[in-house]
């Protein structure tokens, strides 16, 4: 057992040092592409770190959103940058003095955080006892889901709203769709055909299992969104008749369900987003299911960047 715990210490130290080193390389590599690849590697290592900290929910989200989809978004942004700037835009070297001016407040933050951590009791319970006491009233048995979809459900509401606003911002830029990537690629085509049903299945599983084990709307949504990204990469586009109203309804379904539930709860005499515990699990399932659909569609639409055309003349 002694050797085993030593080994675990070694792995933890390796992960920690690796994270710091990767973060440094991401910030200071002159090539944008290299920085993006390093950022994806950073996300994967971060997911491993969350696993080591016994936070599988966060690890799942980090791997799916942090490494996977953010990586894909950054790469697609990089492609767009390369297309649009004909001349290689030189990155001006920032004056050293500004770097050092930034370093001082950062150092203060680090010292402050370190001091705050040193003040913590060795095994802080935080709010976990309060969550454990009220878990029966939440309608789910996974404490993370209980917090995110019941006790602090307005957090999730605002997260869904932020994603939606991000897509509105991207769409308002009126970016034209690039011609590159629409040529059919046989290997990618086969891969997509095998993976898409599997990803849909995994997303449904994650959504369902979120009630009592790690999983939930954001994880399921990002897996489903990844299926959308794969389809887009393989050259698939939303049929014109679905790109109008049906697409928009799917995009706002999550947010509007949240708001509708909030309003219904107030009309029913309760407080904002306060669920009666007898119906809590059904409400949470409906919220999570619609949020999953919306999150997946928004993420895939963010990857495509250009707004899908729904009439023939555009």
């Amino acid at each position: 057992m002694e050797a085993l715990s030593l080994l675990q210490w070694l792995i933890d130290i390796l992960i920690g040092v690796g994270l710091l080193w990767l973060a440094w390389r991401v910030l200071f590599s002159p090539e944008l592409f290299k920085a993006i690849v390093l950022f994806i590697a950073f996300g994967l290592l971060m997911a491993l770190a969350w696993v080591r900290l016994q936070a599988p929910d966060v690890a799942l989200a980090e791997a799916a959103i942090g490494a996977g989809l953010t990586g894909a978004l950054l790469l697609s942004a990089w492609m767009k940058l390369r297309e649009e700037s004909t001349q290689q835009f030189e990155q001006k070297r920032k004056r050293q003095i500004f770097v050092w001016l930034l370093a001082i407040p950062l150092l203060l933050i680090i010292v402050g955080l370190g001091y705050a951590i040193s003040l913590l009791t060795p095994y802080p319970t935080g709010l976990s006892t309060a969550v454990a006491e009220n878990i029966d009233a939440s309608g789910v048995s996974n404490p993370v889901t209980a917090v995110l979809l019941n006790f602090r459900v307005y957090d999730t509401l605002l997260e869904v709203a932020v994603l939606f606003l991000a897509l509105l911002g991207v769409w308002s830029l009126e970016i034209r769709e690039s011609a590159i990537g629409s040529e059919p690629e046989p290997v990618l085509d086969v891969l997509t055909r095998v993976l898409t049903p599997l990803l849909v299945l995994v997303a449904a599983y994650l959504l369902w299992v979120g009630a009592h084990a790690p999983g939930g709307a954001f994880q399921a949504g990002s897996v489903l969104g990844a299926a959308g990204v794969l389809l887009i990469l393989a050259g698939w586009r939303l049929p014109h008749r679905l790109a109008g109203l049906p697409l928009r309804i799917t995009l706002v379904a999550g947010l509007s369900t949240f708001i509708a539930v909030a309003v219904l709860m107030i009309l029913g005499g309760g407080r904002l987003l306060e669920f009666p515990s007898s119906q809590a699990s059904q409400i949470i399932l409906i919220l999570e299911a619609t949020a999953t659909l919306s999150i997946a569609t928004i993420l895939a639409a963010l990857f495509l960047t250009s707004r899908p055309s729904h009439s023939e003349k555009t």
Partner: protein
Amino acid sequence: MTLIDYLSVLFLLAGAVFFLAGTVGLLRFPDVYTRLHALTKADNVGLGLLVIGLAMQAESYASVGQLLLIWFLVLLAGASSSHLIAKRALQRGVRMWRR
């Protein structure tokens, strides 16, 4: 330790050797095609050996199935992405290494 334990240690070590060789190849080989060659050996065979070694220690057939599924997915993703990278490199005219 039983015979099964020894066998699984053997498979795990063999898998680790493949990963080490693949990493060395990735770092040392001269061009993108040979590096991909080294990388896929580590991914396909190395992970396969690890999966066999771990499957011997699995508690249920369900977890054996999960391990095999992971291997299958990595095989699929690894083969496809290496193919795509190599094809793109050929299209962009990256020269193959000659001695």
